[in-house]
């Protein structure tokens, strides 16, 4: 034996012990006694606690996943990279079973890598499914994507992204694909899938998830996933990786109800159930409008605050005007004098007589000449100036708030959906859709004469509907009617006459499709009509409920009636038998 080796070994031993000491301190686990932390543990344990990084905190603990990671002996990254390469290769070769198997293995190696679940679930449901010709096989692959994502959700219960994405898959993928009719039916009848979801703790058979036929509906199940995502977020999810703006995030669930209502109407459910579905969408949309939404400006807004804000602003302006007297006019005149002659002329020329250049000049001149409240307040005498400035500041704040609300409302098309949900609840909307549905069914059954008659009836109904709610002319309903008119024309086998009842609509659509149109006005008219109808209905209900009805009726359009009495969820009213139920 070489004696000089002994001191060397001793040095090694000491070095090992020395390096173990910091390791011990860093890695020391936290100690719990009676559910209380008696020792916070080492740095690693503290960081884990602080950021909720413990395995148990993230979601399911799976022995298969743990052992798969152990089995790679620290080469998890390499193993995962190889599996990704292989998965890609299998996909290229259209070797789908192997592809799906390798995705499962990737997930076992990286169960808390959110993007992997999302990406590969999308890969299965969107990219793989379309490679199959049989729509049932396509559905099976979409389902496989959803099952995959479900597992991811189980592994990462504190992540809000995955259930949100799952909501999109259930809703959009099944409900908006070309095969939507088939997919929706397959999903509703897929008892085994519902059982499987229920076993995983997600009950799609709950009252909120049941469609018009009392079976789980893909849109409503999607909404349940969105709700779950909202729940996760509100219970303090890992927010760092949440990539959705709060506005769009919270709009998803109510929009899903709108999609559901659209879908059942398309499938021929055009009775109280459809009305109820729209009512529910309407209420849900209103509730969304009442929700506090964080903005990028750092303050929260409520979308339904717009009219209140406008009122508050008017009130403030009145107060300010009374407070400042003719100072505003003075400031205006002073500034006006400083303008160039061209700017002055441009401002004073009436709009219809302005040249293009004058329009541009007037635009900038107006900005120069209009004093903002602070500027006006500064002209006040010193003793009232502070009070004036405070008032001016409030006006400016309120103006900004109103603009922000307006901006956010535009982002989610709030006005449109609000109006649409109201309009669709009306009897004329239901009648128009029912008659068109009947006509189309007769046409597909080759009952030509009957179909043409029914179409003619239907155009009258649609004319009524478009006159009342012109916004419907330029949305999906308009598209559907245009398509139907084309089919009608083919069945007629001649050009449409000049006195065709929907000629005005066709011309407007042509103009709108070519040059765009004044949607705002269409929307305004529709909103007014919807509000009026709603008020009338509310008044009718009120009078019906009162034992001794008043002798005079208040015909003045009331404020928007509260919609709170319509249930947001629950069983719809008993369905009336549908004529030509295409479901």
């Amino acid at each position, binding site marked *: 034996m070489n004696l000089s080796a002994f001191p060397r070994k001793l040095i090694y031993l000491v070095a090992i012990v020395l390096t173990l000491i910091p390791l011990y301190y860093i890695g020391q686990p936290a100690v719990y006694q009676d559910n209380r932390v008696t020792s916070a543990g080492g740095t690693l344990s503290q960081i884990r606690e602080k950021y909720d990084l413990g395995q148990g905190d993230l979601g399911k603990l799976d022995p298969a996943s743990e052992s798969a990671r152990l089995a790679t002996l620290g080469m998890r990254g390499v193993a995962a990279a190889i599996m990704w390469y292989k998965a890609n290769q299998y996909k*290229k*070769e259209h070797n789908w079973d*192997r592809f*799906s198997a390798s995705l499962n293995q990737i997930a076992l190696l990286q169960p808390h890598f959110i993007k992997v679940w999302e990406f590969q679930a999308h890969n299965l449901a969107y990219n793989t499914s379309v490679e199959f010709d049989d*729509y049932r096989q396509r559905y099976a692959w979409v389902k496989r994507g959803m099952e995959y994502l479900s597992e991811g959700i189980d592994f990462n219960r504190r992540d809000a992204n995955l259930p949100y994405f799952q909501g999109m898959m259930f809703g959009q993928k099944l409900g908006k694909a070309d095969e939507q009719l088939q997919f929706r039916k397959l999903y509703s009848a897929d008892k085994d899938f519902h059982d499987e979801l229920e076993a995983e703790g997600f009950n799609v058979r709950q009252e909120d998830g049941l469609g018009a036929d009392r079976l789980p509906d893909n849109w409503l199940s999607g909404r349940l996933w969105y709700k779950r995502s909202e729940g996760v977020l509100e219970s303090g999810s890992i927010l760092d990786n949440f990539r959705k703006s709060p506005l769009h995030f919270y709009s998803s669930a109510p929009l899903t109800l709108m999609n559901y209502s659209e879908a059942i109407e398309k499938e021929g459910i055009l009775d109280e159930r459809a009305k109820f579905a729209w009512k529910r969408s309407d209420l849900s949309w209103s509730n969304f409008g009442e929700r506090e939404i964080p903005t990028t400006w750092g303050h929260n807004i409520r979308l339904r605050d717009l009219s209140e804000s406008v009122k508050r602003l008017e009130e403030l302006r009145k107060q300010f005007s009374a407070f400042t007297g003719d100072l505003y006019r003075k400031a205006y005149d002073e500034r006006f004098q400083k303008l160039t002659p061209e700017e002055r002329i441009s401002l004073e020329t009436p709009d219809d007589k302005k040249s293009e250049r004058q329009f541009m000049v007037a635009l900038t001149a107006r900005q120069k000449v209009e004093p903002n409240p602070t500027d006006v307040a500064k002209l006040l005498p010193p003793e009232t100036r502070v009070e004036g400035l405070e008032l001016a500041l409030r006006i400016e704040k309120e103006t900004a708030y109103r603009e922000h609300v307006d901006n956010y409302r535009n982002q989610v098309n709030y006005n449109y959906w609000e109006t649409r949900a109201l309009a669709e609840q009306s009897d004329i909307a239901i009648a128009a859709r029912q008659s068109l549905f009947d006509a189309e069914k007769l046409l597909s059954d080759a009952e030509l004469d009957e179909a043409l008659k029914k179409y003619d009836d239907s155009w009258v109904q649609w004319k009524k509907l478009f006159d009342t709610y012109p916004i419907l002319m330029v949305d999906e309903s308009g598209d559907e009617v245009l398509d139907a008119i084309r089919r009608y024309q083919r069945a007629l086998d001649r050009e449409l006459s000049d006195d065709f009842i929907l000629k005005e609509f066709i011309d407007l659509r042509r103009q709108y499709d070519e040059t765009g149109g004044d949607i705002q006005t269409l929307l305004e008219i529709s909103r007014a009509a919807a509000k009026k109808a709603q008020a009338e209905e509310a008044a009718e209900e009120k009078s019906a409920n009162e034992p001794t009805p008043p002798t005079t009726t208040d015909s003045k359009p009331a404020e928007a009636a509260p919609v709170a009495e319509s249930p947001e969820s629950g069983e719809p009213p008993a369905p009336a038998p549908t004529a030509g139920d295409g479901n």
Partner: protein
Amino acid sequence: MLFDLELMTPFWEWFTTVGLLNGVLLIAALSAIGFAVCYIVAVYLYGPSEGFYVIAEVISKFFRDDLPKTSFRRIAAFARLAFQEAIRRKVLAVFAVFVVGLMFAGWYLNPGADDPAKLYISFVMTSISYMMMMLGLFLSSFSLPADIKNRTIYTIVTKPVRPTEIVLGRILGFTLVGTLLLVVMGIVSFIFVSRGIVHYHEMEPMVANARKGISTYDARHSHTVTFSEDGTGVTDEVKSHKHTVSVREVDGKKVYEFGPPEGSLQARIPVFGKLDFTGRDGSKGDGINVGYEDTRRKYIDGASLSSAIWTFDDVAESRFGENLNVEMTITAYRTFKGDIVTGVRGSLILRSPDGKVESERIPFIVKEYQLDRIVVPSKLKGFRDGQPQELNLYQDLVQAGQLQVIIRCNDRSQYFGMAPPDLYLRAGDAPFLWNFFKGFLFIWFQMVIVICFGVMFSTFLTGPVAMIATVSVIALGFFGSIASGSLSGEIVGGGPIQALIRTVTQQSPTLPIEVGAEWLAEGIRFVDQGILGLLTVLTNALPNFPTLISTADFVAHGINLFEGLVIRHSAVTFGYLCLTTIISYFFLKTREFAA
């Protein structure tokens, strides 16, 4: 699954065109290099003429004494020693690992897969082949170096033994251990696979006296059962299997009994044909590329004269039976969604090679990624010179043993995709167990090759280095095609130096490399080409492991492993055994000189 049809070439055809030539070239090249290197060393040690004499003496001794006088008795003795040594080194632990792996396989394998049998078979075969490779690697590369290090080798070389015996004995001994393990693993995996797919269903409540019913949902699927007049039922094919259902009456109530799954474990004997395409106008074409990355499948246009024509040889009733089974996996490609509910339609036509006689169109709806079976009866309607006629399959359509099968797509603007192996005639079935055995034979070949290389390297390298060298051989065997692909430009990005620079500087592989100066880039490319060229040459000389591993796919997909392929690989394995033994002999011989 797209098989490489080159693997189906009959043995003699392969041997005379590819095998022999490659073998001879390899031996010639190795001999030349070996001789040159040894001569240089010998010149350095003994001078030019003496050196030549020494080498000539060694070579002649090999042919004169050592090779012809190699004793099988002594080889057997060495094999016994190697066997005992391997057992002492606790190689049986590999089996324990395997069993543990199988016990938990359910965690990793999805029983809901479209074809669980396929998944299970490829899992067991692939994992065993990797395990056996590892076993071969560890056993072979450490044994001789340990003997040399412990100097136990001297007690052997001083006895009248020949280096060939030492080498062959070791290879044989380790192979025996491996074989023993492989047999046990094979039996265990067969039990695992056949047990894994067994499941039973029950009947869901059905209408009295109904002819059709639905089974319960078990093992993540259910079947539709159709009952015949006599009351026995058979299910539809789901996840590649069927069940038979028998009905008994117990106390006036009908009790349905499902049999085990049938058809999951098969070994179909396919007869592949040669595939040609015609274009839209019926003239000879190449098939259309619809834009998929994998271009092995070509497509034909719907509602046109575009067709896929397979020509089969040796078609006879004695081979295929009275009815001809055509099996196919055609894929569809839609340029527009069209009718969503109905699949893309096509037709199959049988035609004589001279084109004068053809059958009526047999319509089908494409079943993508599933096996579609069409049974063609021996008597069928058709046309001779355009005139309708009753035809006999084997007498009228088959001419000189040849028959053509034509596939057309019937829907306008939709496409059918196919590669040669996508349609074949089924000449019955081979027993599954026999096919499974053949699959394991390929794993055995692979293990033997690894052992041969391991022993060869261990004759002149120390244990760990020999292991790394053997791993390099395996790695080159697996991934060497990347080098040849890069060399030919098929894989973009260039060789190792370029890859390193691109990785660090994040440059796209599709663009020419930028390093500041064109002359430098040119230089890097030049060196890369050299490295890739060398790797390609080496790869061509080494065993092709991916082909060996891919045979598991044949077994998994229920395709009978063609006997010609088994013989081919036994020849290749034998070739490598001889080659490595000879090389080892010379190395051991030189070490003896040194000692």
